[in-house]
């Protein structure tokens, strides 16, 4: 039974989510078609040409570099962006620091424009810029040594971001005790890393996986966990409150961590957090530090919309509206702890870190 394929010309459909879908969703035929067209990098950007201030021969495009990194499913998009930006510095033929900074800024803007709804992309680009340029090396007289220092810092940031998952995995091991039941939502590679490490350390625990409609990413996660011999139970999204009694903790990833300490994550996270809070279950978030963004949403509607088409399996009359937002905002009072590569933090520390970096 064929469904109507939603219009792909809708500019608000988040390319980020489509990419994730391409990587992790359960692939069905109609989705495959959409995914193919979605993953084609067709950003209508004039700025990709402005990116190459430098030699036209090499025609270095940050988007190309980005896509090259991004196609690897294990690599977070933000890390791909960071690597791409680092490559910009290396490949840059600028001769003054000012020029280099301008180039970097343009590259960063290009990347951000590629998908305006992706918070981690924006956050990572911004943080990269701050981290790299916030060094006294920029006052060196010798441009080459300053540039070398920038490259060094950029690589270091890339390394940190890449290794972030491993660090988070190690930090969270203390929180998983024998015999515990963990509820996870959505497919987060960080969370998967945590669970993989715990299984590897021979901990005995079981996992409740929500289905994660409309992506149905939960199915993929349960597959992967089953391969690790971890007892997995699939629950539909509506059954979360029903099963919350048996759950010891909730573990989710994050698309972005906002300045208030709350998180932006796949649709359904807020619901789960509310239920968990009312039943006194801790909610842990595993997020890398490059996801800290300078947004401050006050309520759900304060976010920039990121839509994704929802497939109900039956044709929906056109009069009926469909809520197709792909993500929601969970306020900090519902979160217990954040596992980040900077350590295990409380939500209020996010703003501390951001202030220190940005002021």
């Amino acid at each position, binding site marked *: 039974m064929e469904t109507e394929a939603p219009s792909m010309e809708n500019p608000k459909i988040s390319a980020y989510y489509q990419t994730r879908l391409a990587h992790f969703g359960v692939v069905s035929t109609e989705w495959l078609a959409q995914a193919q067209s979605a993953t084609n990098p067709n950003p209508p950007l004039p700025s990709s040409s402005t990116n190459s201030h430098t030699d036209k021969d090499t025609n270095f495009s940050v988007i190309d570099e980005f896509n090259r990194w991004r196609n690897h499913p294990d690599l977070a998009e933000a890390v791909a962006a960071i690597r791409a930006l680092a490559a910009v510095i290396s490949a840059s033929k600028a001769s003054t620091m000012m020029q280099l900074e301008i180039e970097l800024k343009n590259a960063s803007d290009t990347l951000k424009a590629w998908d305006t709804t992706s918070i981690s992309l924006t956050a990572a680009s911004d943080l990269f810029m701050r981290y790299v340029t916030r060094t006294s090396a920029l006052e060196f007289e010798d441009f080459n040594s300053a540039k070398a220092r920038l490259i060094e810092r950029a690589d270091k940031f890339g390394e940190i971001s890449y290794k972030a998952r491993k660090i988070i995995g190690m930090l969270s091991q203390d929180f998983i005790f024998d015999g515990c039941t963990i509820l996870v939502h959505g497919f987060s590679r960080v969370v998967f890393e945590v669970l993989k490490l715990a299984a590897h350390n021979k901990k005995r625990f079981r996992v409740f996986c929500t289905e994660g409609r409309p992506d149905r990413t939960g199915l993929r996660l349960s597959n992967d966990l089953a391969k690790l011999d971890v007892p997995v139970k699939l629950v539909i999204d509506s059954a979360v409150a029903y099963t919350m009694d048996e759950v010891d903790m909730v573990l989710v990833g994050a698309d972005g961590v906002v*300045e*208030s*300490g709350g998180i932006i994550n796949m649709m359904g996270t807020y619901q789960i957090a509310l239920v968990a809070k009312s039943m006194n279950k801790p909610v842990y978030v595993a997020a890398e530090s490059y996801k800290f963004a*300078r947004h*401050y949403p*006050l*309520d759900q*509607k*304060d976010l920039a919309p990121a839509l994704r088409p929802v497939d109900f399996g039956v044709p929906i009359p056109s009069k009926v509206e469909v809520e197709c937002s792909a993500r929601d905002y969970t306020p*900090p009072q519902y979160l217990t702890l954040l596992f980040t590569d900077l350590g295990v933090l409380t939500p*209020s520390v996010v*703003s*501390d870190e951001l*202030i*220190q970096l*940005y*002021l």
Partner: protein
Amino acid sequence: MDARRPPRAVIDPKVRTVGFFTPPDPIQFDSNSLSPVMIPPPCHSSENLDLHSPPSVTPPSGDESVSVTGSYNGSSSELFPAPMSPALSQKIVAGDGGVGGGIVASSFPRGGGVPVCKLTTVSVVNTDSFAFDERDKPNKGGGSSMEVKDQAMNSKQKNEKSSKAERRALQEAQRAAKAAAKAEGNKATGTVTSGNLKSAKATKPPQKVDNTSVAASEKKGVDRPSEKDRKKDVPHPRMQYDDKSRVEKAKRRAVVNHTESRNRVELFRHLPQYEHGSQLPDLEAKFFQLEPVHPSVYKVGLQYLSGDISGGNARCIAMLQAFQDAIKDYTVPPEKTLVRDLTAKISSYVSFLIECRPLSISMGNAIRFLKSQIAKLPLTLSESESKTSLQSDIERFIYEKIILADKVIVEHAVTKIRDGDVLLTYGSSSAVEMILLRAHELGKQFQVVVVDSRPSLKGKLLLRRLVEKGLTCTYTHINAVSFIMHEVTRVFLGASSVLSNGTVYSGVGTASVAMVAHAFHVPVIVCCEAFKFHERVQLDSICSNELGDPDVISKVSGRGDVNHLDAWANAENLQLLNLIYDATPSDYVSIIVTDYGMIPPTSVPVVVREYSREQVWI
């Protein structure tokens, strides 16, 4: 993480009785007058409690605790009219090895026209020589020195034996002597302190503590005078009002006449109780007698007193501009250094302003900035260069921290207003008004609800200005705030200050509005410039506040028939309370918009830390 501030020495909290209690019989303090404002003596019995705790702090740490206390004292005393100064002025420093321990109650002597705070620097006295006759010597030259209560066992017994009255009498006598000595000259604090120390007559020359205190005072060097000045500016509530002679002295020294207030509320006895109305003509009459006060400062004081200038930013800017004028006309007297003398002068102006109306926190921060700038003047500058530098510093402060900050706040906050919003605001805040007008300029469609309350009814002015610009407004009284809250989408509030635990210190009524908004899940947005942040923590609205004129409560303008309270002063069991500020807990605040960006209430101490660090580099 960057290196944080070094941990402060822990200061024992003073036990102070706050609450409903009957004031103890004042007769036991050999003064037979009931002063108008009484500080309950039980707070002094707590002094003795402190004595019994044996510290083992060595002099080097005594060093830092002296300075730490100083700075802690200084900052808070300047900013809050009724700080916890029993805690401030008490500090425990061990004596040298020969003695079991000693308590050094250090407070720095004040100059200027404000009565002395509490105790003066002390030093250690040997147990053996400890005797009450020691303290009975009233004249200790330039200053009272030792009030050392030893902590050895015998002294403990002695303390218990001696009556409170005796100790109080002794302290009073010492203070009277010291105040008399100080009334002669308005010397720089540093010299007075050293003078006090040197002229102290102790059985055991207090070399060690002397050195540490002096060393501490010089070690902090430039900071010292400003901190001491701040301590001088701690206003009345810290004064002992039960001694008739002290009250007389305070009255004589006071520039503004404080008429005795009647029917004071017990819970708020620790706050200065003023009646503003009668002071204006007094002050005007005294203008030509008040030479030390610069006319601009005098004018600003008058404006505070009459209520012409109100609102945190306006008061702060007026005060700073008055100081600018004063600095412009200032000349260094011969034989004095600019830094110390000017600091002392500014402190005297500040005391005058406090008498007119207690300082707000933003003003306190501005004064602290000014004093630190004075202290940082390089000695090589000539007088005119220093003056111009200070004037430009003040100008820059006003521009950067207030005017520009407001612009940044407006730009940030405007992003939180969407079409179709119903915004509620309380009272009249300059920042919120700017935000609303700017959003309207940008063409956003929204409605405003202005909530107002008696007795000040400041919302009416805001309402008038908004309606003039064409905004759709609703006006209501605070009684109706829970009625109307279900329609509201955002609440915008201003703040007089934000404290380190995220508590918002603002006009009275703000806490109620924020609480109702929280109950209805409406986000509360507080708009406050970063220079109004303070490192202090306050848990309730009682321990530090300002009392306004109670008479305005009894009268309703336009309703002459509501006159039931006209004779309220005669009723013995009726007290009217007019609080000016209240404290909103951080749970009710969703976001604070500052010139540093939008931050959650938990990040206020981070901003305070960054801000103070940045100040150093200005």
